[in-house]
């Protein structure tokens, strides 16, 4: 401050301002003071500008994309062996649906890199490293910035817009694991290689509608990376509507319709004689997902308290042919006949932040095995005992959790669940988990 004053005075003197102030009138004195004040201000501004210029990142580094790394680790205490995990009544998806290993284990580490590529595109890559050192491309896509009138095109590998939770990254989930419905209908979380076109309506009430065409690399299209064919292996149509109620409640509802044509969609089971067999489905799979979310915070300010209610309902019908024992490991092996099923399920969960940093949550999962007709059983060629995993059973699960987030970048969670996915045993699960994010400040979807 002091040297600035001197500097300003020196500049004023150099400009040849009169020094015999005593002889001047009051007005001129005031002018002089004002001039010095202005100069002082200019010097201050110039100094600040210089500070900022010097603190600006220089060189190639300045153009680096936003990089963030998610780390998480978990302690699991399970009353049933996770190696035997199954969800009875439903076709196994081949997805990563089982609980984590018992004891301490590292969760998936996620590396996310995102930036605007140029004025036309934005790019995002999210890579996950599993604890057994496998690297997987979770999402890698480009999306348009330059389209107008509410249109966006996305291409690459991305989480499909089927239901609400499917598009949320696991580190941002409110519970440690996915809803049972996501596990049986989407193989835990559906990401596909494809292209998405979305249009947002120019209305005050939020409304979007979109279509995704994908390769069909995962369940329900097929667990083996998709069919060898031109065109698309899966098509998903979706729409959302959303808005605000009053000055504290925001809501959104979505509807999605995913159609695929699986071929050679295999799963493992054990026949009535106890022989491990591989069965295969080919046909049509149609999945409807209705989702709703409601978030309340006083004056939309979630810093202190908020409540979040989320639910989804899935309904799937499949129609086609089921081949029993494709490898002909048994005498009655490699037979094919019709297969049709209509199944449903869903969950409802609520999460409440009651004081800053602390949240509690409850989730209820329920699946309905519905109706399944297997031609080989109806004709008497085989018995229901040859398809034990498909025997009608309605799995349920209740989950409670409490978590603590010392900042936006870290979270520690304790979760208890009573999982009745298996028809013959109840799995009491305890998870203690940390999830942290390093690097760029993430932005989470509504």
């Amino acid at each position: 401050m002091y040297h600035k004053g001197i500097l300003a005075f020196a500049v004023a003197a150099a400009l040849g301002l009169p020094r015999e102030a005593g002889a001047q009138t009051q007005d001129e004195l005031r002018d002089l003071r004002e001039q010095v004040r202005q100069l002082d201000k200019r010097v201050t501004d110039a100094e600040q500008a210089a500070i900022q210029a010097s603190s600006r990142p220089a060189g190639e580094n300045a153009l680096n994309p936003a990089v963030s790394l998610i780390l998480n680790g978990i302690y699991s205490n399970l009353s049933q062996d996770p190696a035997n995990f199954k969800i009875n009544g439903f076709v196994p998806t081949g997805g990563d649906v089982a609980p984590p290993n018992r004891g301490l284990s590292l969760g998936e580490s996620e590396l996310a890199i995102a930036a605007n590529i140029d004025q036309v595109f934005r790019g995002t890559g999210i890579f996950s490293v599993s604890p057994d050192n496998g690297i997987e491309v979770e999402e890698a896509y480009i999306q348009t910035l330059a389209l107008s009138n509410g249109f966006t095109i996305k291409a690459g590998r991305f989480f499909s817009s089927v239901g609400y939770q499917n598009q949320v990254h696991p580190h941002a989930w409110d519970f440690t694991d996915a809803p049972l419905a996501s596990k049986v209908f989407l193989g835990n979380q559906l990401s596909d290689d494809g292209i998405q076109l979305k249009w947002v309506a120019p209305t005050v009430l939020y409304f979007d509608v979109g279509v995704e065409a994908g390769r069909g690399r995962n369940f329900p299209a097929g667990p083996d990376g998709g069919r060898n064919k031109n065109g698309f292996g899966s098509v998903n149509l979706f729409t959302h509507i959303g808005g605000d109620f009053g000055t504290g409640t925001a809501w959104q509802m979505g509807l999605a319709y995913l159609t695929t044509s699986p071929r050679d969609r295999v799963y493992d089971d054990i026949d009535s004689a106890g022989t491990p067999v591989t069965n295969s489905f080919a046909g049509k799979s149609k999945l409807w997902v209705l989702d709703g979310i409601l978030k309340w915070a006083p004056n939309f300010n979630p810093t202190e308290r908020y409540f979040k209610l989320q639910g989804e309902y899935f309904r799937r019908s499949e129609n086609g042919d089921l081949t029993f024992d494709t490898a002909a490991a048994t005498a009655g092996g490699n037979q094919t006949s019709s297969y049709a099923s209509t199944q449903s399920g869903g969950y409802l969960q609520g999460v409440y932040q009651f004081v800053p940093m602390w949240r509690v949550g409850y989730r209820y999962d329920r699946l309905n095995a519905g109706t399944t007709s297997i031609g080989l059983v109806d004709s008497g060629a085989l018995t229901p005992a040859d398809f034990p995993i498909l025997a009608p059973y309605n799995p349920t699960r209740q989950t409670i959790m409490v978590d603590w987030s010392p900042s936006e970048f870290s979270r520690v969670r304790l979760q208890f669940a009573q999982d009745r996915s298996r028809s013959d045993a109840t799995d009491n699960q305890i998870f203690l988990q940390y999830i942290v994010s390093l690097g760029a400040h993430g932005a989470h979807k509504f």
Partner: protein
Amino acid sequence: MKTILKLAAAIGSALLALPAAAALKVFACEPEWGALAQELGGDKVSAYSATTALQDPHRIEARPSLIARIRSADLLICSGSELEIGWLPLLLTQSGNSKVQLGAAGYFEASQYVARLEVPKVIDRALGDIHPGGNPHVHTDPRNIARIATALEDRLARVDPANAETYHSRGKSFLARWQAAIARWEQEAAPLKGVPLVVYHKDFSYFINWTRMREIAALEPKPGIPPTPAHLAHLIDQMKNSPAKVIVYSPYNSPQAAEFLSSRVGIPAVMMPFTVGGTDNAKDLFGLFDDTIQRLLGALK
């Protein structure tokens, strides 16, 4: 599905038929920028503020209603300097609106036009949720508002050339009134010079710099981390040696910590309006500074 597509087409065509002469749609991230756009544009603009004074602008949900608003905006005005980093990028990528993307004429970051304070020399999350570009709450110094108004006036004229004259003449009138008001505020705020104060969050740094008050502590142990009992106890100790005269907080902060310290140390806690709409008297930008200064002077009496 066909029904949904038909519905979408119907809504689309209905809205395309709207008159083209509608006011310029401004999406303001914070109320102060909405108010400034309205001052400069009058009835030529219709400004929507994504947040209110009761919301922490650092922590906003990317709600569907905000995406819907940004979808149709012609001009976006935000503080920038990473204040909105947790929600604005999402709104932008989901909006399908090229007019307001980063780098487009419709994207205006207010903090780019002023000298920023508190540009961190060390950037580390252990220091809290810091902004590498400097403190983003630039609007608390009225001289910054004047600089930003000049830039915004030009930007409005660029985005909406048909009404350029209006923006320039309104801009000139606003600046004249604003400079007169600054001179008045500087006189009124003269007693604040050198007054030591405790802030809740570092959101009044520009105001403090302007009025030459002295910020000696913050209720947040680190930026963005809510006050903890341990930190408050430490502050009570600190106040014994170097007492502050007033504690200030914003409408979006919980008053509990400020009131607790106030009762323990025996100095007043004042809720400042922080932005337009923060108090009943802060109806516009002029009222914002009138009320801010009056509240502080009132507390120090």
